[in-house]
């Protein structure tokens, strides 16, 4: 039994002309201290899985449990002490008229911490910003600095699990490397558990020991990092993703991947 256990999760969005089944019977288990990846294209339901764990998506079936206990609806404050989320776009996920200090103080106030001063300073130092950034507004920060603030906001309650929704896809390649290194270091130092959603196979291969490939709300395939590195994918869809991640080739990537599989 893992730290996070998802059994037959169903998420259905109603309200449109027809209900949309965004996640269809997903089962996965994430161990304590592990970094787990979810890969897929837009509309595959990968972000919805993270939002469902946080209680931000309308689950219509299945059970999500953390530490062996099924989650209640709505989530308890204690849940958010243990599980926090970092969102994709640091330009949209920070309040434009709140200073960094206020962004970081809010979760502390909600959870009744009294040593806010010390925690805010520690959190800013931990993400490599330093206390000089404490009274700045988001528009005075670069994209990478904003994402560091978002990570500090998630970590300030000292959670055990961090849900990362495309944490670097809005950032330039050089900034992406810095943020990935930061996440890697924090996980090593604190024994955090990550669930990382990304469309970039290289990011997931770098960060995660295991991963699930999703398509149209279904889990297509589960792979280990070694499987991914050795290109040991069973499903055509995963092979197509692998081929596409290598960049453009003049011949057809589907053909290339099936012929290389035939050779192997």
């Amino acid at each position, binding site marked *: 039994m893992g730290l996070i256990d998802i059994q037959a999760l169903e998420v259905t969005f109603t309200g449109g002309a027809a209900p949309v089944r965004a996640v269809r019977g997903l089962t996965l288990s994430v161990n304590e201290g592990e970094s787990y990846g979810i890969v897929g*294209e*837009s509309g595959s339901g990968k972000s919805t899985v993270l939002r469902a764990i946080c209680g931000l998506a309308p689950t219509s079936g299945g059970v999500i449990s953390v530490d062996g206990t099924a989650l209640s609806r709505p989530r308890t404050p204690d849940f958010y002490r243990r599980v926090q989320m970092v969102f994709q776009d640091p330009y949209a996920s920070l309040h434009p008229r709140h200073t960094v200090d206020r962004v970081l103080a809010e979760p502390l106030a909600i959870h009744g911490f009294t040593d806010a001063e010390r925690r805010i300073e520690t959190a800013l130092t931990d993400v490599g910003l330093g206390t000089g950034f404490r009274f700045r507004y988001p528009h005075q920060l670069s*994209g990478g600095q904003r994402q560091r603030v978002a990570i500090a906001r998630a970590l300030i309650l000292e959670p055990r699990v961090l849900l990362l929704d495309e944490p670097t896809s809005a950032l*330039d*390649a*050089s900034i*992406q*490397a*810095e943020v*990935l*290194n930061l996440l*890697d*270091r924090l996980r090593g130092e604190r024994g955090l558990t990550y669930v990382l959603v990304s*469309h*970039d*196979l*290289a*990011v997931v*291969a*770098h*960060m995660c020991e295991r991963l699930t490939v999703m398509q149209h709300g279904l889990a297509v395939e589960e792979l280990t*990092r070694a499987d*991914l*590195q050795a290109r040991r994918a069973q499903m055509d869809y995963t092979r*197509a*993703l*692998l*081929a*596409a*991640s*290598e*960049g*453009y*080739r*003049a011949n057809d*990537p589907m053909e290339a991947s099936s012929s290389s599989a035939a050779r192997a």
Partner: protein
Amino acid sequence: MTLLSVKNLRVTFPTRQGPVDVVRGVSFDLGRERLGIVGESGSGKSQTGRAILGLTPSPGKVAADVLSFDGIDLRNADARLWRSLRGVRMSMVMQDPKFSLNPVMTIGRQLIEAGRRTVSKPQAKAAAMAMLEAVQIRDPKRVFSAYPHELSGGMGQRAMIAMMLITEPDLLIADEPTSALDVTVQIEVLRILDRLVTDRGMGLIFISHDLRLVSSFCDRVLVMYAGRIVEEVKASDLGQAQHPYTQGLLRCLPQIEGGARPLPTLQRDAEWAR
């Protein structure tokens, strides 16, 4: 044969702190080939593309020693000259079809509007259908009468490429044409562009932040940093890039095969921006 010639292109925006040069002395020649322009956000790559088409947003100012397209001097072109070129002989594919297509016009009407620049209306309609097929849309009739919100991102981007190519331009500037798309769709869209360049002998400027993608698709790559071209490299020789910025950009990408951990980060040198 040179299709486009740019020498010492500068784009300047006035700010409260005084004028800021976002493009500083960019020079290159383009033949009927695929040229990639790569850089991070704020490097001036998009402003370079826009300046070539005369689309620099006000109050920006463009200056150049030479800016000529097929022998036509574009530096002091008036509105009439731009109208005869833009969308006819040179056009641009933007990043996100969601924001670049007219939301209240069907794809078909937008295509005909673009095609009407050179041919009569019935001809434009026929050309529009043919163009939708050329960009590998399986059901061109449906897409023709669809509104942009009824199409997926990949479909919308194909429709936009069709619209830009319907007049068979000599030069196409594609500004991050695939960044909003999924990887597998991305490859399909690139394949369409590739075929059109090869078949029609078009010149293509491909602007992107994705060094790996550009190098696998283009013939030549210009690497921009802080408004300047820091390096020009043949796409196949990208591994032998000389400039520390290019090398750093390549190194800091994570690899599926695994690699350095922590990832090498880019140490910026004030000297690069000069």
